[in-house]
């Protein structure tokens, strides 16, 4: 007797693979927005750089006080005025040094606001001495 074999269809089911894959896509899409990874580049003075007190007359001293008020070379001003004060100096000398000193009781945002402003004006030579450095050179902290 001749036995007729039924032919079985051979097929790999791939339909569900795409479902799994899209599920993973959505996960990574969502996960890629988790973290904040942008900020402002902060260049610390190198240890072997020349003393920052070498030419204090040539540098602009920007001070942030405990109440977040600003003074530049002793003159009180706001952020917009600071920009106007620095721009002509930077036009004359693009490598003009700016020393940013912040009172220890001032909020961190006061320092970042000024820092951001200085970067926006185009200050390249920015020095932010720490209080330990100031005492090393016998200088006073901002009140």
């Amino acid at each position, binding site marked *: 007797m001749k036995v007729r074999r039924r032919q079985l269809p051979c097929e790999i089911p791939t339909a569900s693979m795409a479902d799994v894959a899209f599920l993973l*896509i959505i996960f990574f899409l969502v*996960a890629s927005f988790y973290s904040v990874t942008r900020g402002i580049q902060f260049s*610390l003075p190198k240890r072997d750089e020349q003393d920052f007190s070498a030419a204090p007359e040539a540098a602009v001293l920007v001070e942030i006080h405990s109440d977040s008020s600003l003074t530049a070379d002793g003159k009180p001003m706001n952020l917009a005025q600071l920009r106007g004060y620095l721009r002509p100096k930077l036009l004359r000398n693009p490598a003009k040094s700016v020393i940013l000193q912040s009172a220890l009781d001032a909020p*961190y945002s006061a320092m*970042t606001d000024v820092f*951001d402003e200085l*970067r926006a004006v185009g200050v390249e030579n920015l020095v932010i001495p720490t209080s330990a450095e100031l005492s090393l050179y016998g200088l006073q902290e901002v009140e």
Partner: protein
Amino acid sequence: MHIRPSLRKLESHIPTATMADIAFLLIIFFMVTTAFSVDRTPMALPQTHEQQQVAKGSAIISIAPDGTLRFSPGEQDVAVVADMQALGAAIRQVTAANLLHPFVIKADRNVPYRLIDQVLEQLRLAGAQDVALLSRPEPTP
């Protein structure tokens, strides 16, 4: 003329094999570009106009509004650091291996500058050369 309908049966079939290929390609893209945050401490970051991409795998120094210090050398999750001296030791461990290792300071905007000053001092003593301050973009008017 009489037209006989074809006896051959037409099969209806949607080709789905390539869809998975495309999907896996997209998965790999998102896997590579996803940067998992190692520090999930909620805080209000300061806002700045200037924004630069922070290097992937940077060591994170996190300063919470209550002054709690947390540190991660880059890959691991952040761990609470007892005080400034312990933070300095952790920073020196990283800089001893690689002086150019990037550091990110993630601090709340209302933290007193005193803490930032102390952290910067530790970074300076350790000889760190690549430091960034984490910030949010300023809202456009």
